[in-house]
C-alpha cells in the first residue's frame, strides 16, 4: 500500500512557512500604516496575520510572526514612535499579542493532532480491510477444496462399494455427504455475506418494482404446486445498489415462501409506506409459522436460526445479509411476528441521493 506522507493542511517546506510569516506580517503592516493615515490605530490586522500564520505555518512560523509584529508595532505605532522603546502603557498590547498567539497555536496543534489520528485510523482501517479481503480470498480458494474432496470420495465409495455397505453404513455415508454439502453451502453463504462489506457499492436510482418482479419470477420456479396468494403493491424508485437490494429482496421473499410452506394457502404481501425526509419503508408480510417476539434480537444474527433444520432448511445467514445490506444503505431493518400467525419484515430506504 502506498503510504503517502500525510498532508495536514500545513505547508511542508520551511521556506514556505516562514515566508508566509513574513508576508502576512508585512501585509498587516501595510494595512495598519494605511489606516494610521486616518489616525486610527488597529491591532486587529496583526492579530489576523498571526492567526493565519499559526494556522497554516505551525508554531515556529507563528513565533516569528509574533516577534515581527511586536517589533514593528513597537517601532511604528507605540509612542515614542520610530524607536523600539516600549512605554509601560503599551505593555498590554504585547501581552495581548503573546496570549493570542499561544491560543491560536494551541488550537492549531490540537486540530493537527486530531487530523493525524484520524488519518492513522483510516490507514489502519484500510489495512484491516485488505487483510479481511485476503482472508476471504483464501477461504474461498482453500476451504472449498477439502469439502469437494469429502463429497467426491464419499460418492465414489458409495458408487463402487454400494453392495458391500449394509444399511447402517449406507446411512453413515449419507450423513457424511449431507454434512459435507452443508459445509459447502455455509462457506459459500459466508463468502457472499463477507462480500457485502468488501465490495464497493454502486448506487443509482433503482426501480424496486422491477427488482421485485425479477425476484418473483426467480422464486416462483421453486413454488410449483403450491397455493400462494401474492398481493404486491407497485413499489417506488429508491436510491441504492441494485444488485445488493435485489439480494436483500431475494432473501426476504424466499424466506416468506419458505416459512409459509406448512400453510394450505400461503399469503404473501409486499408493500410500502412513505415516510418523512424522502424515506420509504418496504415490508414483506406472510401468514407463515412466524416467530416469538422474544427472540427478535436473534433474528438478524449470523448463523442464528429459530427453527430446527429438519423443519426448515437454511444456513442462518440470509437475514444477517439483509441487515448488512440495509445498514450499508443507511437504513433500518426490523421484524414483527407471532408464533403461527405470520411475520412481517420491514426495511427503510432513501428515495433520493439526499444525505
Amino acid at each position, binding site marked *: 500500500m502506498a503510504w503517502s506522507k500525510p498532508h495536514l493542511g500545513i505547508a511542508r517546506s520551511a521556506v514556505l512557512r516562514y515566508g508566509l510569516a513574513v508576508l502576512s506580517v508585512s501585509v498587516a503592516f501595510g494595512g495598519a500604516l494605511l489606516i494610521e493615515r486616518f489616525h486610527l490605530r488597529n491591532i486587529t490586522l496583526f492579530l489576523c496575520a498571526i492567526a493565519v500564520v499559526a494556522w497554516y505555518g505551525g508554531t515556529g512560523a507563528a513565533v516569528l510572526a509574533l516577534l515581527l509584529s511586536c517589533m514593528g508595532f513597537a517601532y511604528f505605532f507605540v509612542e515614542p514612535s520610530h524607536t523600539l522603546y516600549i512605554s509601560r502603557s503599551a505593555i498590554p498590547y504585547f501581552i495581548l499579542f503573546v496570549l493570542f498567539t499561544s491560543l491560536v497555536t494551541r488550537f492549531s496543534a490540537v486540530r493537527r493532532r486530531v487530523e493525524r489520528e484520524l488519518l492513522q485510523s483510516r490507514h489502519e482501517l484500510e489495512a484491516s480491510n485488505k487483510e479481511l479481503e485476503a482472508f476471504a*480470498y483464501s477461504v*474461498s*480458494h*482453500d476451504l*472449498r*477444496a477439502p*469439502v*469437494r*474432496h469429502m*463429497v*467426491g*470420495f*464419499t*460418492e*465414489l465409495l458409495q458408487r463402487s462399494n454400494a453392495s458391500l455397505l449394509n444399511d447402517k453404513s449406507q446411512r453413515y455415508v449419507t450423513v457424511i455427504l449431507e454434512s*459435507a*454439502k452443508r459445509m*459447502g453451502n455455509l462457506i*459459500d453463504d459466508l*463468502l457472499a455475506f463477507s462480500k457485502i462489506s468488501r465490495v464497493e457499492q454502486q448506487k443509482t436510482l433503482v426501480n424496486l418494482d422491477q427488482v421485485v418482479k425479477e425476484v418473483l419470477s426467480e422464486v416462483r420456479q421453486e413454488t410449483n404446486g403450491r397455493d400462494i396468494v401474492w398481493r404486491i403493491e407497485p413499489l417506488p424508485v429508491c436510491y441504492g445498489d441494485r444488485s445488493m437490494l435485489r439480494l436483500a429482496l431475494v432473501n426476504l421473499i424466499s424466506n416468506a415462501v419458505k416459512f409459509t410452506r406448512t400453510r394450505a394457502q400461503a399469503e404473501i404481501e409486499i408493500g410500502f409506506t412513505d415516510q418523512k425526509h424522502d424515506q420509504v419503508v418496504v415490508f414483506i408480510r406472510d401468514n407463515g409459522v412466524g416467530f416469538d417476539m422474544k427472540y427478535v434480537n436473534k433474528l438478524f444474527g449470523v448463523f442464528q436460526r429459530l427453527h430446527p433444520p429438519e423443519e426448515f432448511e437454511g444456513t442462518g445467514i440470509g437475514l444477517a445479509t439483509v441487515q448488512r445490506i440495509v445498514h450499508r444503505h443507511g437504513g433500518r431493518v426490523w421484524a414483527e411476528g407471532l408464533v403461527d400467525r405470520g411475520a412481517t419484515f420491514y426495511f427503510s430506504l432513501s428515495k433520493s441521493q439526499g444525505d
Partner: protein
Amino acid sequence: MERILMVEDDPKDVELTLTALDEYNLANEVVVTRDGEEALNYLYCRGNFTGRSNGNPAVLLLDLKLPKVDGLEVLKQIKSDEQMRMIPVVVLTSSHEERDMVASYKLGVNAYVVKPVDFHEFVNAIRQLGMFWAIINEPPPGSVKKRV
C-alpha cells in the same frame, strides 16, 4: 500422445478429475503437471520434458492457485507467446472470486469453470469439458492429433 495438459497441485483433485474423465476414456489422454513451472516446462519441452514428442496440447486445464508460478502467470505467459497463444486454456478453479475471473478473461482465457462442490456436478462439468475440448472442438494447427 496426451492431448489434455492438466495443471493441478492437489493430488485429490487430480484423482477426482481423472476418475471423471475415465468414463469417456479420456483419462489416458491427460498429462498432469503439479505447478506452473512444470506446466511451462512441458509446453516449452524443457527441464524434465526435454525429450517429449512435439505438439501442443489440444486444451490446457489450469488451476489458479499453484505453487511457484501461479495460474494467472502461466496464462499470461502462454497468451503473450506467438507459438502458444492459440492453445485453448480453461481455468478450473475452486473459487468464485470475481477478480480472478476478470483477470483471467482479460488475459484471454478461453473458458472459466468453478469446480462445483457437488460431486455429480463436478463429474458432469469435467466430462463436458473433456468431451468438448478434446473431442468436439477442432484444435488449432500445431496441436497433437486425435488418435484414430
